[in-house]
Structure formats: structure tokens, C-alpha cells
């Protein structure tokens, strides 16, 4: 046994078995059934769209990491998750270049300038989809009727159908009843129509603790409440709540996009605030917004205020624990060291006495 071949490592010497791969793998596993359903409804074109999205996002992410001068880490699949998320928001009859532009904007304009995987301030999939929704609204919001095989490449001749969200916007009576929408054979974005499968994936992610329960629950409560108070559909309040929640990308966004850990606040209560206000803003966008489903724009708007919620909760907690909103002589950014990173003492491997933890 070579005495000096040993590696020095820091305090907790047993670590969880999860790694980067499993964390992002959970999201991909959760999205897989949605792709299978989309493949069942719209033929192999859905899978190809997902593939192109994931490939462009991954390649661009690797290039941007190289451009930053850092070593690309192949286990980090967060770009693939964004690439898979974008096509699910779009109709299956969308041309490929739309998905590619969305991924380009998502990775290059949102993730790369702010520093890669853990530092983006906005949800990349939301910004990518918002950009394409502004560029080609007629392509992004015209949904093919389900259960028809779409041509894999070239011109897609698809019988289009009107999505429930569109009906609600015009105030018309949605042609499908609630049960059909839950089963998902309604026209709509590729991955956002089958409510049962989305809820199942959400449950799986909840149990795997990849997503928190606070933001989605408060989101659904507030949007349900607003749908109940100002119903848009002529029938009773209950059906209007059902239609509002099950139409458009609302439920899909709640499970996959609101809970994105990087852009949502870190504190538990701040997540509740974040979910509640984004629920209210989504409903406002649906009532007054220019687009059929303003979920994505509302999310981007709420990402702006996410750090604010965190800071407010932290100040309130500080008030509860220490009685004052801010520490005594709190100079933001003033008295800490100048720009270049202060060399923190290397985590000292000195004997961590048991009393330090024991007592």
C-alpha cells in the first residue's frame, strides 16, 4: 500500500450517488413520455423536431463553453433539456428552422452571456419560444389536428384545427368538452395537450425532488382563482377553470418551466410568491395580451422579479431573527474586496475537532 499515493479530500467523505447526469437525466426521462405521445399523435416528425432541438442546443452550449475558455463537461445536459423543451411548446407542423432559431436564441442570447449552466437569469426555453412567437406568429400558433401522420420533411400538408386557447381568447365556446382535453386529443402544442401524462411526469419529478412543490401549487391556486372570478367561457365557473387550466401551455409550463431551479427564487416562501404572482400575470396576459397564450412572456417578466422576491424574503427573515431588516453596518458591495476574487483561505484540512460538530 503506497503511503503517499493517497488523495486529500474535503469534509464529507461520503457523497450522494446522484451526479450531474442523473439530475438532468430525470428531466429528460420526464419529457420522454410526452415525446412518445406526440409521436403517437403526429408521427415521427415530432421525434425529429425534438432531436434537432436537442442537437443544436447541445452543440451551441459546448461551443459557448469553449468560447469562455473553460473545459466542456460532457455530463452536463442542461442544454439538451432546453433543446428538448422548446419543440414541445410548438405545434408538430412547425418547420425545422423555427426550432433551430429558437435554440440559437435560447443558448446564445440567454445562457452564454451570463456564464453558462448555473448562471442564467432567464428561462432559456421561454426566451427562445418568445422570440420565434414574435417572428412567426402564424406558424407557431397554427396547430394541426391530432391523430394524423405528418410528413417528416418538406411541405407539411396538415388539416389544422382551432386550439381551445384560441377559442377562449375569442370568447367562443370551445368545441371539446373537458374530458377530451384531459385525454389530450385536442389541437395544441406538441407536448402540452395531454394533461394526464404531464401531471404524471410532474408527480415523477416531484418524488425525485427535481422540482419543488411550492411554485406550481401557488401558481395553480392563483390562476384557478382568477379563472373562477372572471370566467371567459359562457358556461359555469367550474368548467371555465378547467378550460383555462387545461388549455394552452399552462400546465406544461407549471411542471417544467416555472420550477426551473436556476431562475426561480431559492427561498421556500419566495417560491410561493413567485408562483402566485406569475399565476396572476399569466391570467392577465390571457385576458389582455396580444398573443393567444401569454404564458411564456409572463414567465420572462416574472424572471425579472425572482431575485427581488428572494431578497425581500431574506430581509424579512433577517428581521425575524435579528430584529433589523439589514445587518448593522450593511454597505452593499462597498466594503468587500475590490473586483478581483479574494483568495479565500484554501479549505483547511486541519483536524476538525469533534467538539466543533458535537457540541
Amino acid at each position: 500500500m503506497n503511503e503517499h499515493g493517497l488523495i486529500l479530500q474535503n469534509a464529507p467523505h461520503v457523497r450522494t450517488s446522484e451526479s450531474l447526469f442523473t439530475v438532468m437525466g430525470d428531466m429528460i426521462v420526464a419529457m420522454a413520455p410526452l415525446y412518445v405521445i406526440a409521436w403517437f399523435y403526429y408521427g415521427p416528425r415530432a421525434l425529429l423536431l425534438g432531436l434537432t432541438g436537442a442537437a443544436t442546443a447541445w452543440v451551441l452550449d459546448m461551443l459557448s463553453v469553449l468560447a469562455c475558455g473553460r473545459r466542456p463537461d460532457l455530463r452536463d445536459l442542461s442544454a439538451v433539456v432546453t433543446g428538448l423543451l422548446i419543440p414541445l411548446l410548438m405545434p408538430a407542423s412547425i418547420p425545422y428552422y423555427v426550432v433551430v432559431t429558437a435554440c440559437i436564441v435560447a443558448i446564445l442570447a440567454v445562457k452564454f452571456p451570463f456564464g453558462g449552466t448555473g448562471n442564467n437569469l432567464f428561462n432559456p426555453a421561454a426566451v427562445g419560444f418568445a422570440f420565434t412567437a414574435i417572428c412567426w406568429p402564424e406558424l407557431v400558433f397554427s396547430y394541426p389536428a391530432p391523430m394524423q401522420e405528418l410528413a417528416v420533411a418538406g411541405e407539411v400538408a396538415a388539416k389544422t384545427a382551432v386550439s381551445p386557447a384560441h377559442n377562449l381568447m375569442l370568447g367562443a365556446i370551445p368545441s371539446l368538452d373537458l374530458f377530451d382535453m384531459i385525454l389530450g386529443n385536442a389541437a395544441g402544442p406538441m407536448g402540452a395537450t395531454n394533461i394526464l401524462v404531464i401531471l404524471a411526469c410532474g408527480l415523477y419529478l416531484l418524488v425525485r425532488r427535481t422540482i419543488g412543490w411550492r411554485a406550481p401549487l401557488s401558481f395553480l391556486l392563483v390562476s384557478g382563482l382568477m379563472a373562477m372570478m372572471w370566467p371567459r367561457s359562457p358556461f359555469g365557473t367550474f368548467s371555465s377553470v378547467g378550460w383555462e387550466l387545461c388549455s394552452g401551455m399552462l400546465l406544461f409550463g407549471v411542471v417544467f418551466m416555472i420550477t426551473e431551479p436556476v431562475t426561480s427564487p431559492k427561498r421556500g416562501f419566495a417560491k410561493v410568491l413567485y408562483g402566485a404572482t406569475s399565476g396572476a400575470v399569466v391570467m392577465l396576459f390571457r385576458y389582455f395580451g396580444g398573443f393567444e397564450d401569454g404564458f411564456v412572456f409572463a414567465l420572462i417578466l416574472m424572471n425579472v422579479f425572482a431575485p427581488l422576491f428572494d431578497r425581500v424574503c431574506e430581509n424579512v427573515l433577517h428581521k425575524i431573527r435579528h430584529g433589523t431588516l439589514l445587518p448593522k453596518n450593511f454597505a452593499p458591495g462597498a466594503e468587500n474586496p475590490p473586483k478581483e476574487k479574494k483568495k479565500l483561505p484554501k479549505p483547511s484540512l486541519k483536524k476538525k475537532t469533534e467538539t466543533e460538530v458535537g457540541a
Partner: protein
Amino acid sequence: MSFFVPGIVLEQRKEPMLSRDMVMMKPDSLRTFQNPFEEILPQELRPEEITEVARLADIIDESDGRSLYEELIEADKRGVDAVIADAIDDEPFISSQLNIALHEPEKIALALELCAKAVHADLSKIYVAVYRHVFDITIRIPKKLAGVEVMRFGGRYPAETRAYNKFRKEKNTLTVGTGALLHLVRAAERGISQTSCFVTVAGDAIANPRNVEVPVGTPVSEMLRFCGLAADPETVIVGGSMTGRSISDPEEEKVGVMTRGVLAFRESYKSLGYICIGCGRCDHACPEGLSASQLRRFAEFGRRDLLELYDVDRCIGCGSCSYVCPSRLDIGTTIFAAKRSLAAEKALAEKGGAAE
């Protein structure tokens, strides 16, 4: 652990060390001392005789490093009404205290009675404190250990710190480690002074992992050779699996009274400078309810103002955040180092202030 309470429950992996008996490494190294109360049965010893035996055998309590004699004197002065044996091993692999309690319950019961008598505590109020969330063990932890009631501590890691905080708040309990209790019984019965300590030798590089009674000061390499090495270890750790430290040279490294375990692992976890992907697991893992991801970011960028606002001084350095981090970042170490440097600077500022 649960959805609502922050903190994590660690997978204990205490088998097969727990169910195996304790083994004495060097039997001939036992030293006896001249016991004036040789002929009296331990049960009839008077309180001051018990403290005298503890002083003569110079027994040291391995849970907090103070000598048992001082603890008994101080507890007697304070007026204590319950004596608790500390058999809480909440760190994975480590089971040195629990092993003693499970395999020699009668001796522990006798020792608890002696201690209770020594500090004039109520003889009926003696307990053995045990960590409840240990699932994968073959022998079951009974309700009563040889007549002594078992007090169960459960919940999230670090259970031991929480238990000690509870005892300190109650102020009328005396906590003694099971190792010290065993030494007290031996000293009272056969006049053997404390030369050894109880260590768990475990890890996936050890051929047959077990609990070992070792004379204090034996080098770690000797212990590893005693238990046999299945493979060439990449890291050797002295102390607990969550709070111990990795060593570079097992030859000089000596085992002390407070060392709970010696672990050898085939490969060290690969912390190759991954980046934080912002998954937020460490925020949920911190038992003190701190947002670990933000604190690590402030510590990395040297933002002392935000460190203070986010309450870095409440961090107890338990390492749960580093445990759950999927990209193997040393969050706990960074935050605890930042806390220490912040406290040092504040002390400096006060001293500077006071000096003017």
C-alpha cells in the same frame, strides 16, 4: 427528508460492522492500577469511591474529550437528575458507540447505575440515547437494553448536535459516551485503566470491516493491516465519515481517544472543479434553513455584506449541503471557511476598534 422540513437523512450503511462483535487488537497492552476498593463489589461502591476509581483509571469521555472524573464532579455540583449514555452514531459507516451498547448492555446498565449514584441522580432515570433512522441493520435495536430504557433520536443529520443542544437546554442531564462507561465498569471490577479506545474500521477497501478496540496511539496503517485490505485505497479518513479528515501518510497518523472511525475507500469522489448547475438541492438539505447555494456564491465572490445578511454565522459545518451536491462541490467547507474568516475579521475589527 420530508417535503416540508429542510435537512436530509443519510443512508447509514452500518452493516456488517454493527452486528460483529468488538475485537481487541493488542490484548497484552492492558495496564492495571492499584485499586484501593478491590474487594468491594461495584454495586456497593460509595459515590466518592466511584469518582476516585474514575480519576485513578484516568478515563476520558470520547463524546466530548473531557475526563470522566471532572464531568462527574461538575455534574454532582450542578445537581443532575438523569444520566444518559450517548450511543448516537448518526454518521454513515460509524458504529463504535452503538456497537458497545448493543453487545454489552449489562455492563452499560451497571456503569449507568454507578454514574447515577456518583452524581446522586435518580437511579430510575437512566437512558441510552440511540439514533433511530438506521434501517439496513440485521440486529434490531430493542426497546430496553438490559433494563435500561432506550431514548430514540431520529430525524435529519446531524442528530448528535441536536441531541446535545437539547440536553444543554435542559441543564439537568449528564451525557457520557458508552466507551467511557465500559472503561468505568472495567476499572471498578478489575482495576484496568483506560489505555484503549473503540474505533470502527470500515470502507469499501477494507477486507472485513468491524469495530476494533485499539490501544490509544497505534498508527492507522497497523489497524488497516489488522482488518486486511481488499484493494489499494485512494483515500484514508480518520474520524467520522462526515466530519473526519483525509490523511496523506497512514504511518505517522495516530488514533486518539476521540477518533470514532478509520475509513478507507477505493476511489475518492471526483471533485474536478465542476460548476454549480443551480439545482437548488443544497438549499433544501441545510438543517439550519440557510440557502447554501447563495452563500457559496457569495463566499466565492467574496461578498462579505451579503454573507452577513444571509446569516452565514448560523452554519454549523455539518456538510449536508456538500453531501447532496450532484456536481460534488465542497459547499460546506467553503461556507464554513467563509464564516470563520468573517468572524476573524469582525474580531479583528473589534480589537482594532478597542485598540484606538
